[in-house]
């Protein structure tokens, strides 16, 4: 389970003196167990779409469905990972990982078991008593992943989860996310502004138009998840293709050569 669909979703932010149309006529269906990456120019409403899927924002037009039900608020089996601020600096690693379970009112023994298991899964079992402020950026993001894992979610939403990390840590975390997805088989939706990340983690890559965001193109990426994919020529070609589409959409200032800023 964990199917997600956007049906002609429109979302307009109403400010005090002006309103911003973030999404308009946004249609997208994500099947159970599928992994979709959403990419597009900055401010195209990618994050808005994700927040609507998580139930934290209500669309102003159309509707968002999870498992065929209209999303009206946070759902128990949906996990959301944000780029920053997702962790609470005043809670230890253990209590950050256990937070979602505590809020759900689950028994202490089960919380302990599930939190420890997910911390072990991301390699943080030895850091349970540390505070987030004592961890490196990569470890913090691992903790955010552990918290989502502990929820045993069937729908994992990620809003540029790795964009604050350096390139090497980022690849490491991408591999971890891929591994977890291959193993757990949950539905995964990743919002990113990195072409390489989209190709590495999205079996389907959705390109959005500039604001108001709607689907400009969908790129199938069947090779995703294969061993050694990142080093293959198919991976490289997919990146080139995606870059060309983004350039066409005006997401890139000028067509840049692929080898450069990847």
């Amino acid at each position: 389970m964990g199917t997600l669909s956007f049906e002609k979703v429109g979302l307009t932010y109403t400010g005090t003196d002006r309103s911003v149309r973030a999404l308009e006529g946004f249609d997208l269906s994500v099947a159970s167990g599928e992994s979709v990456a959403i990419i597009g120019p900055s401010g195209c409403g990618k994050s808005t779409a994700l927040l609507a899927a998580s139930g934290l924002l209500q669309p102003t037009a159309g509707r968002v469905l999870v498992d065929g039900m209209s999303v009206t608020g946070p759902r128990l089996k949906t996990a959301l990972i944000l780029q920053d601020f997702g962790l609470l600096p005043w809670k230890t690693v253990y209590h950050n990982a256990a937070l979602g379970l505590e809020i759900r009112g689950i028994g202490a023994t089960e919380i302990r078991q599930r939190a420890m298991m997910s911390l072990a899964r991301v390699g943080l079992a030895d850091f349970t008593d540390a505070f987030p402020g004592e961890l490196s950026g990569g470890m913090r993001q691992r903790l955010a992943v552990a918290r989502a894992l502990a929820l045993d979610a069937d729908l994992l939403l990620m809003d540029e989860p790795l964009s604050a990390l350096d390139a090497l840590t980022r690849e490491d975390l991408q591999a971890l996310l891929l591994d977890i997805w291959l193993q757990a088989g949950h539905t995964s939706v990743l919002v990113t502004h990195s072409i390489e990340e989209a190709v590495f983690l999205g079996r389907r890559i959705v390109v959005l138009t500039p604001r108001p965001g709607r689907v400009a193109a969908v790129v199938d990426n069947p090779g995703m998840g294969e061993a050694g994919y990142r080093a293959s020529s198919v991976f490289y070609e997919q990146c080139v293709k995606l870059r060309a589409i983004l350039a066409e959409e005006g997401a890139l200032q000028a067509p840049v050569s692929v080898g450069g800023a990847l």
Partner: protein
Amino acid sequence: MKGGWGHKLTGYAGASVVLLIGWQLLSLAVDSAALPGPVPAISEFARVFFPELLPHLGVSLWRVVASMVLGTVLAVPLGLAIGRSHRLDAVAAPMIFLTYPVPKVVFLPVLLVLLGLGNASKIALITLIVFFQILVTARDAARSIPSASVLSVRSLGAGRMDVARHVIFPAALPDIFTALRIGSGTAVAVLFLTESIAGNQGLGYYIVDAWGRIDYAGMFAGILGMALLGVVLYEALEMLESRMCRWTHVVR
């Protein structure tokens, strides 16, 4: 924090030596019975501490601690709620801005008439002053919490009370402790004022009574007692903070 206490005591000892030397020099320069040097003042303090001073110190401590607890318990939830709700803030903020600058001590005579000369009027006044200091701080702290922090916890299914407990309260706690430490100084000052004006208990009374009897050594013993009260309060708050806000002391 390893060696924190040893380090702290060394610092206090050094500061005490400098202050004592300064005090001695000042009393020599002024050369008045009203400003005895540290040796006679401290020996008098030691002599009267248990038989005379301690009961007054106890009364003063009780008054100031009760006031600070009461003021905090009232102000923190209200301040946090005002800081997180635009609607509540629209109503409360103008009232706070109008009443905050009014010096609350001027209400002492009113409180004395209404609540009598005993503990109630003193505790009410100090509570009022502490309340406003904490209220303003809690409101500002709650307002500055990044909305993304709240969003991420709400995505876990948190309701209003969960957000208050897991995000708003702990995020504001360091600021509240800072306000309390600053407020403890104000509280002791106001305590002295209330005790010196009415009643026959407390360090403020002890100091003014000794002054009236031209017992300057006794007066200074009371002043030292008041200083001790302030230091104990400040230290207690600091210890409480380092226990409750451990994450602010971590270093990467």
